[in-house]
């Protein structure tokens, strides 16, 4: 078995001749959290449905755990857990009953089923409300119930579509913790989102979707270098004479911008904090603060879509 759990090659989806996913290729490695990011309508959900065999593939091919989702959908669906966008449950049933139904569809034996339902509900913190009807559940609780279903399935891959959309910060934090837990259990996670700040904190790698294409793919720092140039922004707060010239002379620093009294913003191609500290001290200045700003996904995203706006409208 290859190291990649999901491989997409030239994956294409056309509705009535109009391509909504235009030949994308990517791979998700075992145990990785991979993010599909992009605005609504960029083709993220369509891609996910194709990987699950829930939507036909117009062109190209996909391999999920070495199975073809078109020809062997059951083999894929047995090992992949899916949390749809705004997941729904049967409101007239309790949380445990909802899980029991899907557990039966998975073909779990009774003893195994009850034990797994119990432990997965406990894992997502819904053990107390296991016998409450889902109608009484909040959005965040429903999302967690969806994750409990994936845990119960003991899936090797969890595919989460917009897992945090519409959740309050507290619920989002809880959900992201459960997603991190999945990773520590060796589950590979593919998640889609347009909420960047939150996603950045959990994803190992991301793919940036744009109009049915993958515009960029890689780790967040990589993307930062690609899109923002330079990449590292180091902020130095120090009191002293002639510091600006000294700092500007550090190898790797491309530009220095004064940012208020005794504050300088450095744009550099690598992390220049040690050199900056040494330069300040060597100049006899007093170093007050030194920080590096990681490239944020938000900035990458905004910048990318600003610079490609012309193409967007042309397309």
């Amino acid at each position, binding site marked *: 078995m290859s190291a990649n759990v999901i491989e997409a090659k030239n994956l294409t989806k056309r509705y009535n001749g109009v391509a909504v996913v235009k030949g994308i290729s990517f791979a998700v490695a075992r145990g990785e959290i991979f993010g599909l990011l992009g605005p609504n309508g960029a083709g993220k959900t369509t891609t996910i449905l194709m990987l699950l065999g829930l939507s036909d593939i117009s062109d190209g091919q996909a391999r999920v755990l070495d199975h073809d989702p078109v*020809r062997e959908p059951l*083999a894929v669906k047995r090992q992949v857990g*899916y949390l749809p966008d705004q997941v*729904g449950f049967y409101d007239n049933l309790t949380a445990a009953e909802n899980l029991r139904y*899907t557990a039966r*569809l998975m*073909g779990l034996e009774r003893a195994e089923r009850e034990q797994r339902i119990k432990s997965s509900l406990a894992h997502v913190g819904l053990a107390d409300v296991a016998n409450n009807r889902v109608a009484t559940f909040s959005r965040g609780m429903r999302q967690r119930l969806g994750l409990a279903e994936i845990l119960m399935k003991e899936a090797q891959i969890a595919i989460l579509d917009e897992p945090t959309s519409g959740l309050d910060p507290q619920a989002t934090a809880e959900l992201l913790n459960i997603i991190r837990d999945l990773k520590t259990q060796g589950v590979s996670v593919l998640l889609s989102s347009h909420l960047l700040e939150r996603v950045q904190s959990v994803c190992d790698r991301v793919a940036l979707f744009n109009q049915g294409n993958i515009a960029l793919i890689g780790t967040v720092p990589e993307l930062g270098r690609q899109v923002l140039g330079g990449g590292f922004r180091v902020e130095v707060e120090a009191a002293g004479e002639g510091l600006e010239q000294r700092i500007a002379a550090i190898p790797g620093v491309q530009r220095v911008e004064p940012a208020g009294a005794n504050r300088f913003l450095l744009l550099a191609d690598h992390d220049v904090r040690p050199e900056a500290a040494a330069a300040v001290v060597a100049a006899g200045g007093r170093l007050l603060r030194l920080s590096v700003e990681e490239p944020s996904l938000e900035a990458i995203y905004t910048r990318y879509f600003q610079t490609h706006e012309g193409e967007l409208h042309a397309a």
Partner: protein
Amino acid sequence: MRREGSALHGFGVVTLKEIADHFTSILVVVLVVLVVATAIAVVRGAIDQIKEITAEDPFLFLRLFTRGGPLPLVALLSFLVPLVAIGLGFDAVNGEHNRRTLSRILAQPIYRDALLFGKFAAGLFTLAVSLIVLWLLVIGLGLLGLGVPPNAEEMARALVLLVVTIVYAGFWFALALLCSVVFRSAATAALVALGLWLFLTVLWPLFSPALADAFTTASDILGVLDTRQAFARLSPSVLFNEIVAVVLDPSVRSTQQSMLAALGLALIERGAIPDAPIPLLQSVLIVWPQIVGLVAGSILLFVIAYVVFQRQEVRA
């Protein structure tokens, strides 16, 4: 391209869940109670009537179904059974869409076949159980009210009626299921299904003779009747009523008999004694095409629903 695994994996699970849903659904319970209560009232009326008019009818028990004031039990069934079937089926598939449970369920290791087959089987089972209960109640009331046990022939004919009514219910359930697949909004599906029900059970039998007369060039009365009948038979309730009229009355030898009688004519067959009862098998043979037509119609509707559902996009 062959698919791996059985298309029916998960069928039983879906069926059981749907049956449980039906029997706990307030809508379904209300509909069934309504039909059963009306039916009991009708049968009580029929019993009173039968007691008054005849004491030596050899098929007294069957009159339970066909007598009873302005609306005999079979007419009630042909009118109300579709309503219950539509109530059971109009939100079967679009309900899953709207609750956003469909993609989650289909992400489990089952094919779509299992979901649709399961829903159909569960609906049919629920309808069958309700109709069997109703049937037993009617038989029981008949025993108590008439004080005469039915003979074997009557029981056999009543059983045929039960089976035909279940098939008739299956037709309407398949229609409701098709609407629930085609229309995303449950309200639209319900209204379209109810509109078709009203059209096919009430309006079509009223208007089809006029329509038929516009198309026929036959000058003899039988030719006109044939054309009218052919047109009217596009309605499943007309088929149901024809079957019932023949199966529940051993003296009826033709589905045109009542139409002829209305014109003051009688059906004369060479060598036959008028109004003499014919065996059950002969009765069934007379309406066999109608029975097959109902079954075929149900299958056709279900197949269309199946094809549309298989090709439908999962996403909302």
